[in-house]
């Protein structure tokens, strides 16, 4: 498969052409956060995003998805959405989450609805340019993506190395026109970006190996930490909404105005909600756990600042703490984005900081969207 180099102008022209011809979803600024949304023009693309409010799983497992339609006669037919789309600018840890969902939904008893969406998707990954203040990907081994995407973009020296790994990625890249060759210097720079990612995408340290986590969690079932966490839990399930790898769903029938026709839909569900494991005789397998949640819910109801609506509470849960400076390696001279003191405006520059804490700057009159590429 081919590796080439794109300057920012070529990238913009290519993305503009893709956005016109295809359904492209990509990270964009919304207020002071980033979201994945339908991309209409290149200048809205923010490859310098730190983290998005909702992960890209929403394109493979939509929050509400129609599974079947039925009419008044009782006849039903399955509905598959096979619309092809391009998912652009996916960070390596989100690539890992998609691979995890693939393993879950496609290996044993493949899910036809997920498979249809997945078949039509081309994933363009992008190495992290701006680190979230709460990132811990390097501890989990997901700071750099080695597979699970069709095309990988890495920003080096004001341009992008584009690495096509599948025929679909190759075909997409071919639409960028003639690529300049990614020389040994550019590839060396890219290697440095990966090394930096492994070093710095760890604002939180894991005190064990990722492989030890399942065993550790199994042995910590009754650990006091859970009860302590539950004291702050409002049972809103926002943590599940923003989780890139949570996959549980509920299935419900929505009836039309005629009370006969309608559709069967699945919606995101959360194993942390009290009724999740409820069975017909109104007992739950999680009685002990429910008791804790009931107690914390009672506490939460007295809190006047608790968010009432789902989207708002999802946003609250996703809000990272105020950006702080990342560790600065003294020897590195990798080109990067720097934040000013307010932490809001991004500037291009040569500097020792490999990852800036990126935040949208849409409200900033000085902001030039193309600079975000």
């Amino acid at each position, binding site marked *: 498969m081919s590796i080439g180099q794109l300057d920012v102008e070529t990238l913009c022209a290519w993305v503009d052409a893709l956005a016109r011809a295809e359904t492209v979803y990509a990270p964009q600024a919304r207020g002071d956060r980033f979201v994945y949304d339908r991309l209409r023009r290149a200048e809205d693309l923010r490859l310098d995003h730190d983290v998005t409010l909702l992960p890209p799983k929403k394109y493979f497992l939509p929050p509400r998805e129609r599974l079947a339609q039925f009419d008044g006669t009782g006849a039903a037919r399955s509905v598959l959405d096979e619309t092809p789309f391009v998912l652009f600018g996916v960070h390596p840890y989100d690539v890992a989450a998609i691979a995890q969902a693939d393993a879950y939904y496609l290996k044993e008893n493949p899910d036809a609805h997920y498979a249809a969406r997945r078949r039509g998707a081309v994933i363009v990954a992008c190495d992290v340019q701006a680190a979230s203040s709460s990132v811990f990907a390097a501890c989990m081994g997901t700071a750099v993506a080695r597979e699970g995407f069709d095309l990988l973009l890495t920003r080096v020296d004001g341009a992008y190395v584009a690495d096509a790994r599948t025929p679909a990625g190759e075909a997409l890249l071919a639409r960028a026109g003639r690529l300049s060759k990614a020389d040994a210097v550019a590839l060396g720079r890219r290697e440095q970006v990966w090394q930096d990612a492994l070093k710095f995408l760890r604002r939180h340290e894991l005190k064990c190996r990722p492989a030890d986590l399942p065993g550790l969690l199994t042995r910590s079932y009754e650990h006091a930490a859970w009860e302590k966490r539950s004291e702050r839990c409002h049972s809103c399930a926002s943590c599940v909404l923003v989780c890139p790898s949570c996959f*549980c*769903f509920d299935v419900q029938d929505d009836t039309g105005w005629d009370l006969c026709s309608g559709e069967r839909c699945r919606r995101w569900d959360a*194993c942390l909600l009290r009724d999740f*494991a409820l069975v*017909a005789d109104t007992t739950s397998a999680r009685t002990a756990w429910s008791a804790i949640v009931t107690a914390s819910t009672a506490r939460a109801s007295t809190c006047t600042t608790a968010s009432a609506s789902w989207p708002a509470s999802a946003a609250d849960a996703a809000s990272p703490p105020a950006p702080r400076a990342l560790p600065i390696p003294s020897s590195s001279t990798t080109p990067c984005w720097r934040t000013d003191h307010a932490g809001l405006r991004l500037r291009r520059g040569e500097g020792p900081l490999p990852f800036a804490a990126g935040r949208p700057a849409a409200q900033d009159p000085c902001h030039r969207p193309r600079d975000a590429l």
Partner: protein
Amino acid sequence: MLFEVRPEVGRLDYMPGQFVEVSLPGVGEAPISICSAPGRGESFQMLVRKTGRLTAALHALPEGARLGVRGPYGTRFPVGDDMKGRDALFVAGGIGLAPLRSAILYVLERRADYGRVTILYGTKSPAERLFTRDLAAWAARNDVQFLETVDRAEPPWTGNVGVITTLIPRARVDPARVVVAACGPPIMYKFVLVSLHALGVAHTQIFVSLERRMKCGVGKCGHCQINGLYACLDGPVFRYDRIADMQEAI
């Protein structure tokens, strides 16, 4: 209410312990266990208690109405393998008799293939006894030991009174070669397992059917997850040693 379901095309190829997802468009879908023995013609039976939206709608259906059925799903009682040639002990509590009835009928149709057969059945009150014709038939058989009890007696009940564990020491089975199939509420399992342990029955000889919210039936929705297991794929019938140390299983 007992439902006799006849597929419009073909027949349902199932084994005792398995369940189907029953659906009514516009109302929803729910897992229901099969209570008839396999191989009894084109239809199968389900016993449905009215406890929620879908089951209430099922109860309101006229005879001959159409339903949506997916399945069969899940694991089976070991009537076709582990239990063969050995003593069989069935322990049913309340509506737990429904899936066990499928296994009991299967065994009784092939009675010569098994050792001693004992059926224990417990309900809260005499009015809650299910499949009373079957119960009478089992009680009348010479090649089956059938014992039942109620938690609270009401006239004209003259039988045993007490929880189901009081019947276990009376089961005429060889603890070393018995295979137990049990289905009932979680509280029943807690005490039945202690009694079986006291009898000397190993965990590997006990099979329990667990009730969980098996929403999709194919191990995707997460509702019936018990740690790393899915009740819809790895269950609902579990060999007890596989879940004995698992939190939230029983």
